[in-house]
């Protein structure tokens, strides 16, 4: 194995949390190898990003290039192919940028590719034994990846805990000269910020959150009525937005909103990692799902195997009953 590299994502001068997680993942592959950070960018703040990576990585290979001021996966792939040693392992965070970059990078490096890695069990000869999930987290698998000609792995955000080690005092090595003019068939134009909805789900202490289990649009009022009684808001997972049953501004997840409620009632939500990525601040999670094997039960505090379409109306009726008793 030539080297272990970690491609670092940064935005507006801030290094993504995945930087420390990739360093931890690299040590799981081989504790004896000090991983190298790969970082690309340009302009104000880039030097500071490179320097700050020295807290985590012993070596930082930096490519400063005007074409890389915005992270365009095609351009970055072309730059990385020029500087990464053949036969290396390259780690990339499994988020929207990694999904854009990593599959093509593995082709161009002629190395193996394993997406969305959750666990690294170690080397077995020229193979690396890894843990993945399938079917939205309902089952896990062990995967054996031949690394004899290198590998690109995308690492699930949050799956590897940062190592508690002393600052690495790393050195920045400028690799810009190895990368000349870059062009791509895809050109970034601009970014459009999300519209703010009528209800701001980030501001509520209690969320009644609905997933595929709501089954149809006509059932959405079941959640709305309960939320009204609780003084809560209705949020949802991706399938509900895909089906156009609720607005995008109600979606919790990596491509939606990040919320920090005190209590999260996950109703008919299976619990994909993209959804859970939007749930911060350690809320008390109560999961109601018909499927006892739903992954949400692994991370919830309280679980109930039941049909949300019957359970929620009973909750609403019970709260109303309590309110009317109090009123008397």
């Amino acid at each position, binding site marked *: 194995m030539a080297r272990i590299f970690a491609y670092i994502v940064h935005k507006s001068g801030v290094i993504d949390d995945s930087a420390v997680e990739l360093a931890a993942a690299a040590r799981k592959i081989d504790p004896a190898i000090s991983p190298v950070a790969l970082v690309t960018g340009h302009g104000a703040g880039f030097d500071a990003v490179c320097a700050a990576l020295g807290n985590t990585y012993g070596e930082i290979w930096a490519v400063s290039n005007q074409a890389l001021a915005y992270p*365009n996966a095609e351009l970055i792939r072309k730059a990385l192919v020029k500087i990464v040693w053949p036969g290396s392992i390259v780690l990339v965070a499994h*988020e*929207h*940028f990694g*999904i*854009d970059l*990593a*599959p*093509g990078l593995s*082709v161009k490096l002629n190395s193996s*590719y*394993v*997406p969305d890695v959750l666990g690294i069990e170690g080397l077995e000869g020229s193979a690396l034994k890894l843990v993945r*999930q*399938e079917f939205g*987290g*309902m*089952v*896990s*698998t*062990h995967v*054996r990846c*031949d690394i004899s000609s290198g590998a690109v792995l995308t690492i699930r955000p949050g799956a590897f805990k940062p190592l508690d080690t002393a600052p690495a005092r790393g050195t920045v090595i400028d690799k810009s000269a190895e990368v000349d003019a870059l062009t*791509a*068939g*895809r*050109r*970034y*134009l601009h*970014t*459009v910020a*999300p519209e703010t909805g009528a209800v701001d789900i980030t501001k509520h*202490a*209690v969320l009644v959150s609905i997933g595929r289990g709501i089954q149809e649009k006509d059932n959405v009022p079941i959640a709305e009525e309960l939320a009204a009684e*609780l003084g*809560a808001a209705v949020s949802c997972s991706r*399938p509900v937005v895909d089906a*156009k049953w609720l607005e995008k501004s109600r979606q919790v997840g990596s*491509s939606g*909103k*990040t919320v920090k*409620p005190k*209590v999260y*009632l996950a109703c008919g939500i*299976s619990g994909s990692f993209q959804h859970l990525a939007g749930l911060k601040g350690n809320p008390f*999670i*109560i999961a109601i799902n018909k499927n006892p*094997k739903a*992954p949400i039960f*692994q*991370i919830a*505090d*309280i679980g*109930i*195997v*039941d049909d949300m379409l019957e*359970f929620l109306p*009973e*909750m609403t009726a019970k*709260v109303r009953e309590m309110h009317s008793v109090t009123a008397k």
Partner: protein
Amino acid sequence: MEVLVCARRVPDTSENEIQINSAGNDIEREDLVYSINEADNYAVEEALQIVNRVGGNVTVVSVGSDEDEEILRREMAMGANQGVLLTDDAFVGSDGRGIAAILKAFVQQASYDLILTGVQAESGGAQVGGMVAAMLDWPFASLVNSIEVVDRRKLKITREIEGGNKEISEMDLPCVLSIQTGINEPRYVGMRGIRAVASLPVPTYSASALRLDPATVGAAGAKVKRVDYFVPVLGKSAEMLTGSREENVAKVLELVAAKGGLK
């Protein structure tokens, strides 16, 4: 515009409970309900809408076995002009790279302006589209949730990035896009539509027809292999309430009040 959509037939997770078989080497496949991968269905709908605006044809291709023909017919009933099945014993056990190599070989036999895939399938890889693009040296974009054809030579596309932000880019054709769910509202396909296409031919291509060396695809060429399936143990696991529904409702309300401040 000639549009190719890569699609896959997968167990429908909304219809099935996914269980591991007793040997631990596969999921229990008896009695599973299969359907087209959800994101692939959005990709086909998007392709149909594009050719509806600018003209052209939609071909849906799948790497698989005879059983996978049913999803090709379903998408033909939706309006795709043709379904094509890439099938060979040598393809069995392909990793993502192998599937991409098979699709690339097919693409090189024809002339397409645009290739769409669903963003990911049941194995959550999100890999094949990006690999096919790199093999063809075509531009690629993942997680696409809007496509606009500009002057028939370029596309203006939107990617769904973090926090609901939309990243807008311009792309040269030909290119490969992976389509995010929710990009459109896929049209309904009834039994009548499926019957109407039942007798249409679905051409098949073998490894030799695609001029593929069998050693480079399938299990023989796979550098990434699944060893086993197991039940994940990720977190602390919930305390399961096993009382009557009435008891559970009361307990949940008590907890919501205690933890969240129910008035």
